[in-house]
């Protein structure tokens, strides 16, 4: 791995990182382009199976419910490594794992087993507006990924009782799926919006709804931050490599200061993202997770954009793999909420605490 020395990670994380890196390098890297251009392909499911073997489909679920019971930082490590090769695949994994978070507040081993069995993956729908009245859901969830026939979808509707945490399946009556095959980023995953008109959930959390939602959101923010770091790393690696072999102006372009400055800023951005994630994982609170997401997402966008710039015309063409990073990075920044709404939430949290 090119770059500055990483801060030491404890052995547990170092092992995990090395495993995830191997998985990404051997399973994801060779098929990343193929995944990008076809959705729901046999290749995709073959990789998912391998991920399942590594415990990536129930990573955060407590062991007593049949999961791996790892901490959020471990998930971040795995997602970062996957995102280096395919941010879209990493996003798929993230939304799947996030969808299982509320189950930790239950005893439903059966649900865990069902949802983490592989095909279809579960997913988390946090954007949009959904409400629930008498066990009936209505409204619209936007930016939902992993949407296939019968995918379990975690939703956070509001009801007269307040916050709800429920699951539906995409093939239930009253669930309308509108797919969009051309999202800007994360093409690997199946992108859709979901219209709900009277659908009934197959499971609804009866207690700890607020906590479950906050925990899920925290994982989504942390995971996206980790994916952002992965994208930034890949952008740096590709740009660094290209800059050391491309000649312009009579020297390899890494010797042009404009290139050096961009590359150095990318490195700083990677480190900043990593530092913010590490810190956010240390405290069980949503605010630092939003802060890490914001910084890492912004840095990833910049890194990918600069990566394209360093590649010049080649960067702009699909066949050279750089432009995908720029598109994927943007979704890390746009999802799960506009940046400014994240900032407003942080202020609200601060004010609540006095």
């Amino acid at each position, binding site marked *: 791995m090119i770059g500055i020395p990483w801060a030491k990670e404890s052995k547990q994380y170092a092992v995990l990182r090395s495993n995830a890196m191997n998985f990404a390098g051997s399973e994801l890297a060779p098929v990343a382009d193929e995944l990008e251009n076809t959705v729901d392909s046999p290749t995709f499911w073959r990789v998912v199976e391998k991920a399942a073997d590594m415990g990536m489909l129930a990573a955060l679920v407590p062991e007593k419910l049949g999961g791996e019971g790892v901490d959020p930082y471990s998930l971040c490590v795995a997602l970062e490594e996957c995102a280096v090769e395919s941010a879209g695949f990493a996003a798929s994994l993230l939304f799947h794992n996030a969808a299982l978070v509320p189950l930790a507040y239950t005893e439903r081993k059966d649900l865990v087993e069902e949802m983490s069995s592989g095909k279809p993956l579960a997913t988390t729908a946090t*954007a949009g507006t959904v409400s629930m009245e008498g066990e009936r859901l209505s409204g619209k969830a936007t930016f939902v990924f992993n949407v296939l026939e019968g995918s379990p979808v975690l939703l956070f509707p509001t009801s007269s009782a307040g916050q709800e945490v429920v699951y539906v399946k995409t093939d239930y009556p009253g669930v309308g799926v509108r797919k969009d095959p051309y999202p800007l980023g994360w093409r690997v995953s199946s992108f859709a919006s979901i219209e709900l008109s009277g659908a009934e959930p197959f499971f609804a959390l009866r207690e700890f709804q607020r906590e479950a939602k906050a925990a899920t959101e925290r994982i989504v923010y942390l995971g996206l931050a980790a994916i952002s770091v992965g994208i930034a790393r890949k952008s740096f690696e590709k740009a660094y490599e290209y800059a050391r072999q491309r000649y*312009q102006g009579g020297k390899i372009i890494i010797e042009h200061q404009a290139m050096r400055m961009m590359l150095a800023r990318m490195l700083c951005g990677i480190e900043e993202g990593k530092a913010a994630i590490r810190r956010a994982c240390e405290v069980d609170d949503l605010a630092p997770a939003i802060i890490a997401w914001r910084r890492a997402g912004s840095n990833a966008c910049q890194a990918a954009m600069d990566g394209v710039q360093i590649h010049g015309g080649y960067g702009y063409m699909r066949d050279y793999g750089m432009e995908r990073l720029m598109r994927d990075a943007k979704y890390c920044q746009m999802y799960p909420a506009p940046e400014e709404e994240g900032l407003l939430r942080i202020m609200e949290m601060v004010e609540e605490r006095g």
Partner: protein
Amino acid sequence: RNYALPKALDLDRRMEEEPEYFDWEIMRQACRYRFLSIFIPKQLGGSATELMVSNTSLLMDELCSGCSGMALAIGAHSLGVAPLVTSGAIGHWDRILGEIVEGERRLEPVTMAYAITEPSAGTDVEEPEFLEVAKLSLEARRVEGGYLLNGRKCFISGGSEAKYITVCAALDKNRPLETWTTFLVERDMKGFSSPRVELKMGQRASHAAELLFEDVFVPDSHVLGYEGDGMANGILMVMAASRGPVGAIATGIARGAFEHFLRWAKTKRNGKRPIDEDRIRMNLADMWGMIQENRGLYMSNALLGDSIFGKVMSAPVMILTLSLPSFVRTNKLTNDFLNSRYGKAMINAIMRYYIKDDDITQLLETASLAKFSCADNAMELCSRALNLMGPDDSEERRWVEKCYRDAKLTQIYEGTNQLNRLVVNNVRFEETLKVEIPRPFKKGVVS
């Protein structure tokens, strides 16, 4: 733009499935509005006026606010026409420009393209200092009565559709700057082909094509300008006229994104409009400010450009020459004269008389500045709009996503923004870069 708006998103998607598809209907529409002859003098039937650069800039701004891909298809054509016009190769004007005008009239578009970039020389072929040490692919070897071209060009906008292509090539790869020359290549010349087009991130309605030259014979008469003046008088001259319009392209993309964003901001969702929030209002004001900055930059460049080129086009001798009946100029004798060193010398003398090197150099500076500033602002505006919309399921968001992809190209083509910054510095603060119109009877560099 009215044509472009309803179709742009669909076409953008279709290109993903079929990267080789080209929508000729765009060009036929362009014919209707006479967009293909915007760089062609009135006397030849074109639609160029004395505000040629301003008009082109405003056109690009307006079209790009609809779809920058389609606009590029039209703009790339004009870019191909530009070297033919600025080199003053009057001997070719009646035939080729006439054909374009005629095609336009009949809605059977005839297009051109300008081929500069090579696989291992992008920035290198846009600046003299860099060209001096460039590693080139294409070479034009001197042979009896003309040249043999061998090698490749890449990422040539419109290169897969153009009937005529203005091509830059070195006569000697080891002395690229000294021997850099502009040729007029015709699609049906033997050995010429465009084997491949790229799937671009954006601006897809126009192709980026690879051009392959295998022993393409180009006759002497098809040298535009002189041997060896392809940089100082060729590319730099064209860039001085075209980079401002690239700024306008970026501005149009930004404005398109802005308009979609504004519509989004004014649309109620869950009972309230985003614009009711102060933060959205502040962002709107900021974005509007960026657009105004851009307009100021490209328009002040365009007006300068028109004041320079206007002088030539309205020069009595130019008007006289162009007012002669076409058959006089196309008469073989006259035509041979115009394509000969004496003919070139005459045109040259006229150009040198009316266009001062310092003026055109200043134009290059302001154009390069408009190019990078407008492009950066456009990118920033699109990025910010997306951040504000977030995971919103609206057609407006899809539009701005397209603008975001489209805008990135404006930071790259016509010289990367980095190169354009260097140009501004080199012209203004170090005075090490200058556009030069060659003296009449400039000698060939090889023969």
